[in-house]
């Protein structure tokens, strides 16, 4: 046997099959990098390569989902599934999990579903990026491969079974996003926003790595499952591990912009180019929520009383401060930044109820949040291209008369963020509310309802400005059909999921039972 064969037989070959979506994203990023470096007349080529890479990765993610459900490899099983009822069959195969790269990378349905939503959100961002950048004279090819690297970081993050993998994914994502914020050409606010995010995000990184050091020092392990066992078998309370957990919660709350550590959010959101703001508000955010849920449930289930209280306090503060400050904002982009802080509050509020229902509510809300956040910010990015549009709240006056379709779309997103019944935002808030009541956390549930009512003050102002006023400025909007269609698709998803959330909620419930099934496994 040659040395290579001995090596392979000794340590085994990692299962590259389940890594195909990540590998495709990585290769696409490098291809875009070289096209940007050497190509001529390259703008459409870069866009289409990025779109192709993301779509291909999306397709392979679906293929792996089907593979986990065992539908491709074995046709007999498929025939059997048709006989015995499709849904019950899928459930029985739901808990399969692939570990690869020597236990440093896990692929299961939980991570795959989040990957699908990250990729879909990114595709919508890429679709609108070029026209925005060209109209603002800030086109760089770098946007595309930095976005791809950030997506790769998020995909690594959501399928990490291990603090090392989690940390690498988080930093790959964060550093790419720091650069993306500062890429607005000749715009000082963008540089300032990027620097603020870099300093505060860097502090968050240091806090998270110190937390990892403490957890490693007092348990001797990095993998979530091993940390759990150390906590389970230790006789007395392990002070070092609890200290590490507190620092980890603080660092993750900083990355998710929960309130005591939210200072960077409004500035970074306002300074960044608007499509990048949408990218930060949707895919980056849901990856962070997913990883928060994963670490809390898989590594620290036996101290759930402590961390659920911590997240409840963070959620309550985020709701109150986010909504209160959003009320006085005149700039809609900055208002949406504060509303995203409030939404962080609604989403992590579900962690206050450490039950299957609570985790399902968190997953459901963070998945639907992609459509609302991308939709609302993409609307701004479409309109910012026109001369005279400043994102000020008065610019929305009379929009319904000039452009009824876009006004309707924006209205749908605003109602969904507010949580009015025919839209999906209502369902998200309802499930969080039910989860909180189910665990008898009445104070937070009541606070959630009150804060939702307060948020009507700023969301409805946008809608009423669009519908009940005469146009204030003579701006003409010509928005092309594909752009209208893409916004329409997002709005229709928001409304249809609001009317029929059953299937989506089943998926979230199953995902949360997957998470719980991995405890101790």
């Amino acid at each position, binding site marked *: 046997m040659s040395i290579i064969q001995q090596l392979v037989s000794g340590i085994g070959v990692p299962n590259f099959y389940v890594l195909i979506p990540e590998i495709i994203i990585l290769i696409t990023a490098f291809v875009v990098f070289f096209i940007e470096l050497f190509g001529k007349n390259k703008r459409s080529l870069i866009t289409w390569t990025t779109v192709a890479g993301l779509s291909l990765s999306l397709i392979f993610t679906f293929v792996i989902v089907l593979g986990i459900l065992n539908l491709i490899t074995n046709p007999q099983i498929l025939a059997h599934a048709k006989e015995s009822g499709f849904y019950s069959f899928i459930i029985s195969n739901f808990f399969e999990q692939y570990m690869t790269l020597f236990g440093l990378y896990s692929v299961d349905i939980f991570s795959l579903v989040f990957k699908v939503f990250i990729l879909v959100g990114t595709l919508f961002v890429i679709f609108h990026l070029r026209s925005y950048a060209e109209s603002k004279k800030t086109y760089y090819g770098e946007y595309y491969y930095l976005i791809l690297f950030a997506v790769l970081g998020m995909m690594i993050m959501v399928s990490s079974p291990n603090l090392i993998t989690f940390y690498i994914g988080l930093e790959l994502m964060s550093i790419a996003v720091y650069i993306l914020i*500062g890429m607005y050409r000749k715009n000082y606010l963008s540089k300032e926003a990027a*620097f603020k995010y*870099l*300093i505060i995000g860097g*502090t968050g*990184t240091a806090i998270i790595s*110190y937390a990892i*050091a403490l957890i490693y*020092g007092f348990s001797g392990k990095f993998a979530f499952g091993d940390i759990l066992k150390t906590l389970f078998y230790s006789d007395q309370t392990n002070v070092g591990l609890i200290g590490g957990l507190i620092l980890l919660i603080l660092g993750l709350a900083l990355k998710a912009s929960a309130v005591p550590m939210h200072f960077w959010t*409004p500035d970074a959101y306002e300074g960044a180019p608007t499509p990048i703001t949408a990218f930060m508000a949707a895919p980056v955010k849901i990856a962070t929520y997913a990883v928060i849920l994963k670490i809390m449930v898989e590594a620290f289930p036996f101290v759930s009383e402590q961390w659920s209280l911590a997240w409840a306090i963070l959620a309550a503060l985020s709701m109150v401060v986010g909504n209160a400050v959003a009320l006085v904002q005149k700039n809609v982009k900055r208002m949406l930044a504060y509303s995203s802080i409030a939404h962080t509050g609604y989403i992590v509020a579900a962690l206050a109820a450490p039950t299957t229902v609570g985790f399902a509510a968190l997953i459901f809300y963070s998945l639907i949040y992609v459509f609302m956040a991308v939709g609302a910010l993409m609307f701004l990015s479409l309109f910012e291209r026109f001369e005279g549009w400043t994102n000020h709240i008065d610019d929305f006056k009379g929009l319904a008369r000039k452009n009824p379709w876009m006004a309707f779309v924006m209205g749908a997103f605003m109602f969904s963020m507010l949580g009015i019944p025919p839209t999906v935002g209502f369902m998200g808030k309802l499930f969080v509310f039910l989860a909180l009541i189910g665990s008898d956390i009445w104070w937070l549930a009541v606070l959630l309802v009150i804060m939702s009512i307060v948020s009507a003050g700023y969301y409805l102002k946008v809608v009423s400005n669009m519908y009940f006023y005469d146009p204030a400025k003579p701006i003409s909007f010509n928005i092309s059909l594909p752009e209208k269609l893409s916004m329409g698709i997002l709005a229709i998803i928001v409304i249809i999921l609001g009317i029929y959330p059953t299937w989506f909620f089943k998926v979230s419930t199953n995902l949360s039972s997957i998470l719980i099934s991995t405890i101790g496994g």
Partner: protein
Amino acid sequence: MVPYEYYVVLSALLMVLGLVGVIIRKNIIAMLISTELMLNAVNIAFVAFDFKLQEVAGQVFVFFILTIAAAEAAVGLGLIMAIYRMKKDVSVEKLTELKF
């Protein structure tokens, strides 16, 4: 032989020093240095814990942290250059334009 706890305390002190630096310094270069100081404090903690556990996994993690600190410093210095070209200043008080 120095006990490992001393190194952990040293790293905690450096961490706090970096955190205080980020909060109170008014010079953007000093702020960037403070974040780097915090990441290096973490490195000391990892090596100290490896000393206690008689393992090497923590020292491998230190390499990742070094790489990430370098990447962050590169991005941060690039941004400082861009800011300095536009404003000819490095003081936070004169640079802040995004406000409540």
